[in-house]
């Protein structure tokens, strides 16, 4: 066990910057983001596609693409600086202390290996079990994620299971070694709404019972508000605002957050009440990106927004915003 207080952050990301080298230029996918996550807490990274949510998750897991380069910052997990630690040290904690659930369970699972064996593989690598115990423990994990008839399902291949069942297998695999931090990268995309509710309730329940921290990556503000204490809103590789869930919806401080809430159909009484967000994400390959990457879409933009360096600053309890002229 590493770290044991609920106040010292389990995960601290500071000033993280990630670039991708591509044929058409360097994409500054993530730029100077930072957040903290304490044990037992849940946090959502919310943003549109291309905002850098998944890249951030992959950086924490140490599974970035070879074309990616971390340009600045650090990631501290339970006292260990992940970016400085060697591949061997990370391989020890990845899967045991740090686990991830991927977006599409069908492509994340090995199609030609029974699901029970895939869970047993994780246990054998990290879980201090013998080869004889592993299959039994895998079945226990399947039962824990409420797969009916786990003994028989352990012998099933992913194609024999429905989407919801495959996602449960992914959760069973991620939680097999009782990790400290679970990253759920759009865990319910492509699942039905009732299945989504079951899967998310299951994650929340297991997280609560193990005092596990959860980082939920989603584009759905509704999902984030139902399951997360804190929400960090991302736009074009920046975290524009971090706040407790209720406070964020009650009074968004960043203009982008306000627009995002106004564009979400969940609470709107009619189609006319929804507000579109003008413009598109800026091209992250540009060399002349303004300090505030939202400034070109922002109705409140002033000359300052295009040249004055932007720092994230605290506003009130537990809230931070990156805007010169917050709402």
């Amino acid at each position, binding site marked *: 066990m590493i770290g044991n207080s609920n106040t010292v952050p389990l995960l601290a990301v500071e000033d993280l910057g990630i670039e991708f080298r591509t044929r058409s230029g360097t994409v500054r996918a993530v730029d100077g983001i930072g957040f903290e996550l304490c044990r037992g807490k849940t946090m959502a990274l919310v943003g549109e596609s291309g905002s850098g949510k998944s890249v951030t998750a992959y950086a924490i897991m140490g599974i970035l693409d070879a074309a990616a380069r971390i340009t600045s910052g650090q990631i501290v997990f339970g006292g260990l600086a992940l970016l400085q630690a060697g591949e061997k040290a990370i391989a020890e904690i990845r899967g045991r202390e740090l686990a991830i659930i991927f977006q599409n369970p069908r492509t994340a699972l090995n199609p030609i290996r029974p699901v029970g064996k895939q869970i047993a593989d994780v246990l054998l690598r990290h879980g201090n079990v013998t080869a004889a115990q592993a299959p039994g423990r895998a079945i226990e994990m399947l039962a824990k994620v409420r797969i009916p008839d786990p003994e028989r399902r352990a012998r099933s291949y992913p194609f024999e299971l429905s989407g919801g069942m495959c996602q449960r297998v992914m959760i069973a695999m991620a939680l097999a070694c009782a990790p400290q931090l679970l990253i759920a990268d759009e865990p319910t995309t492509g699942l039905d709404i009732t299945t989504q509710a079951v899967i998310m309730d299951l994650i929340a329940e297991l997280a609560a019972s193990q005092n596990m921290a959860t980082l939920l990556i989603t584009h759905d503000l509704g999902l984030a508000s139902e399951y997360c204490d804190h929400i960090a809103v991302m736009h074009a590789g920046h975290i524009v605002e971090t706040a407790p869930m209720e406070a964020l919806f009650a009074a968004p401080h960043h203009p982008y957050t306000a627009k995002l809430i106004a564009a979400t*159909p969940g609470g709107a009484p009619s189609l006319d009440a929804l507000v579109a967000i003008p413009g598109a994400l800026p091209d992250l390959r540009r060399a002349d990106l303004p300090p505030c990457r939202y400034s070109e879409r922002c109705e409140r933009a002033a000359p300052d927004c295009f040249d004055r360096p932007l720092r994230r600053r605290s506003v009130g309890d537990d809230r931070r915003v990156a805007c010169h002229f917050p709402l």
Partner: protein
Amino acid sequence: MTSDRPLLAVDGLRKLYPVGKHRIWGRGAAPSLLHAVDGVSFTIGRGETVGLVGESGCGKTTIVRLIARLLDASHGSICFDGLEIGKIPARHFGLAPPRAQIQMVFQDATDSLNPRFTAFRAIADPLLRLRRLSGTALRARVEEVARLTGLPPELLSRFPHQLSGGQKARVGIARAIAVEPRLLILDEPTSALDVSVQVVILRLLQDLKRQLDLSYLFVSHDLNVVRLLCNRILVMYLGHIVESGPADRVFAAPAHPYTQALLSAVPKPGFAGGRSTRIGLPGEPRSPIDPAPHICPLYGRCGRATEKCMVDMPALRAIAAGQFAACHYPITDPAAEPQPLAVNEPSAEDDYRDLALGQRGQNP
């Protein structure tokens, strides 16, 4: 031509797929039948937007394909503007006059556009085939629908990979309205889009409907979008319509236990208490293969089920003005509160469900 006649009337529509054992020269056991759509009747009025909601595997896509006449129905009739189109074989429908009147906008604009066609060619394709336009007439019509859908003309020479998600969605819509259809089938048109773009596309659809006097069949699993766009909704479960009615009425007071469970699963932005009021559906849906004709499809997952639900399949009946539900114990009827049975444990039937979904489960 009377205007009070619905544009589309579907009556007793069924689609059964043989599965499993194949018969060779009529010998061997009769094949099992998967009931994808099992006796569905509904109408779409002129200028109406009807939402079709339900989980994957409930038969939404099959209904869409039957109405778009890409599939032949096993039983039942599809009447489009007084013309029985259900009897035209699907392979001949491409040349039948009603083809241009019923058009489709597909789910993922990226997958449904030919990567080797420019936006112009994609929009021109139905005009070439169904309107036999060419030359300047073709160019004029393509540019006109591009303008209607808010697609800048300079983008018409681009290929799909050079367009953004919202632009591809516009190309998909422009292609569908190019041949002046009267019924547009929208199969999850915004599911691949970010919320910021989704709003714009939904508005565009609403405006086009008014401008071009279209009727929509809007298929979606995003209940929030359905609520905002549709006049009336149809809720499907396992090949049956379990509830239908005006959208605001169904969302405010669902009568069928399945509709209620579905609505309670929708997360509300800025509201953390959704989990406490959620009505769960335990277990998995029943097998759609050779279902017993007298059991309510929701039996085994429904908290309100009694023995009656096991011996008598409920039919759609009126609950309130325009609202119908297929349930013996609809929620708005406090007098008929049943004495619920214990909910069944998942049974061996689930296996078939999983196997069936193994083939089809990719469809979100």
